[in-house]
């Protein structure tokens, strides 16, 4: 949402406060859609009044107060409407905490509880992503629709169905207990990671909106880290995002094609993001419990620290992928493990590992497996086989930048292998 009447500072303040206000409102009234409307009205009221009267001393309290007043009006209206219609009112979700107006109760954990709710395991990840961006990120439905390249009506429906599932699941608006908390936090981090990847893997060409998704994921992860500064998984995820996103400008060429890590212009990497990410990795690795995000971040850090591709500390990356593979069982990790093996022990050793992955149903026939195999065949000097497998990978991928990259790689190799064919 944009507030044209407000300066940047006030607008940022409203964006940061919106999920807290929403959480505080939802804590008292279980009606997701009505609470959302009430928060929107409070934000609009702020946009109208603050430029005139100045930002109040307690802007969050101000917004919560206005939103709760709107909700109370809404509930009163609902009750009188239902009375008029002589409908049984037993199930009216009327919960008005006494003393609310005297001092709007503020719980900094409201944002966290809201995140736990939006990323509830009962929701599909597409729904959880949309709901999180809407309720916690404060993006408009139109903005979210644009980011995912679907019509606004479709996204509105997806969000509305997600709200209904939350309401009908009767998930309480409260902090999950300690036992459940770790598991729920991992759903939250997974959703944030998906949002980041959605923006990162397609940040090319005309789709500028999608890079906003990466920025939004980073912003939200920062917010979670403020609430849980000691959690090493949260810290690891934020580090991973920053260290990956730092390479954004170097990742695509003029035609939107992907540029692999070893061919990127490293002077384009965002050094500030790398410095921040490195500090976070250290903090995350020091604090005991090691998870997948920390390990991924540590690997990203080793790449980012190398001034040239040839300086990359592959033995350490290989060791980290070994740990990661035992921890996750994710076939994509196994692929990366094969790449690192090839860097340390030669391409044939990597190819041998890929042959074992052919048996994995999750990877068999996938473009990723073919793309990695083609790279390793190229390194092993088997140009003809590499060309075939690059082309095979190109027909399997559904990403245009990736397809273009694979095709050009095959073409380049073909021309190098048979230079007389250059003059067609």
């Amino acid at each position: 949402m944009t507030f044209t009447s407000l300066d940047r500072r006030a607008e940022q303040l409203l964006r940061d406060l919106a999920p807290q206000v929403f959480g505080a409102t939802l804590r008292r009234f279980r009606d997701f859609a009505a609470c959302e409307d009430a928060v929107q009205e409070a934000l609009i009221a702020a946009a109208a009044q603050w430029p005139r009267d100045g930002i109040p001393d307690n802007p969050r309290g101000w917004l919560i107060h206005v939103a709760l007043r709107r909700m109370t009006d809404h509930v009163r209206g609902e009750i009188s409407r239902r009375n008029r219609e002589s409908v049984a009112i037993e199930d009216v979700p009327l919960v008005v905490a006494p003393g609310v107006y005297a001092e709007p109760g503020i719980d900094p954990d409201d944002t966290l509880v809201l995140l736990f709710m939006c990323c509830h395991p009962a929701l599909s990840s597409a729904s959880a992503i949309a709901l999180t961006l809407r309720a916690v990120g404060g993006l408009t439905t139109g903005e979210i629709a644009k980011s995912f390249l679907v019509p606004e009506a479709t996204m509105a429906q997806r969000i509305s169905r997600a709200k209904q599932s939350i309401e009908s699941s009767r998930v309480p608006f409260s902090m999950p207990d300690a036992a459940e908390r770790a598991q729920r936090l991992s759903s939250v981090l997974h959703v944030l990671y998906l949002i980041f990847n959605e923006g990162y893997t397609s940040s090319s060409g005309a789709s500028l909106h999608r890079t906003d998704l990466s920025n939004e994921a980073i912003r939200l992860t920062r917010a979670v880290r403020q609430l849980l500064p000691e959690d090493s998984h949260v810290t690891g995820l934020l580090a991973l995002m920053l260290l990956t996103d730092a390479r954004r400008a170097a990742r695509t060429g003029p035609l939107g094609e992907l540029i692999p890590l070893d061919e990127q212009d490293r002077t384009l990497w965002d050094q500030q993001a790398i410095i921040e990410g490195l500090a976070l990795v250290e903090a995350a690795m020091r604090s005991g419990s090691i998870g997948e995000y920390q390990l991924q971040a540590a690997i990203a850090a080793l790449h980012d620290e190398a001034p040239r591709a040839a300086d990359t500390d592959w033995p350490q990356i290989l060791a980290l992928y070994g740990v990661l593979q035992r921890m996750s069982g994710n076939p994509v990790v196994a692929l990366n493990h094969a790449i690192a093996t090839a860097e340390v022990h030669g391409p044939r050793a990597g190819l041998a590992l890929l042959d074992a992955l052919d048996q994995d149903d999750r990877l068999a026939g996938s473009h990723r497996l073919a793309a990695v195999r083609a790279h390793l065949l190229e390194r092993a000097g088997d140009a003809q086989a590499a060309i075939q497998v690059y082309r095979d990978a190109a027909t399997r991928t559904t990403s245009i930048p990736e397809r273009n990259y694979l095709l050009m790689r095959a073409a380049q190799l073909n021309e190098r292998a048979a230079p007389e064919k250059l003059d067609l």
Partner: protein
Amino acid sequence: MKYMLMMNCPRDGYDQFTSWPKKDIEAHIAFMASFARKLQGAGEWVDGQGLDAPTQAKIVRAGKDGKPITDGVFPESKEYLAGFWIVDVDSPQRAYQLAAEASAAPGPGGVPFNMPIEVRQVMSGPPETK
């Protein structure tokens, strides 16, 4: 009025494309990107998508229980849809002109590829999804 411009390729077109020289692939990609920008700049762009390789396509029919029965594409089909644009233009002539521009996208050696582009008007009236 809206038109769908459908880029049809011969059955072996994709295989041919994958073996073009690098500079020809680059020229083709650059042409498609600049064509899209031009449509957007003229306010005529509605949508445009490329479809994945026909070898990945499936033909789906409902079985007796309503469950999907999938089958590969029929190998005898001579052409397949590689991608499409939807444009919003003032006249059918304009749609034909745009289709001709797309058709002349550079092929091997930079020579216009002259792919067949099927032009169909999108029907007006309330869509059946509403």
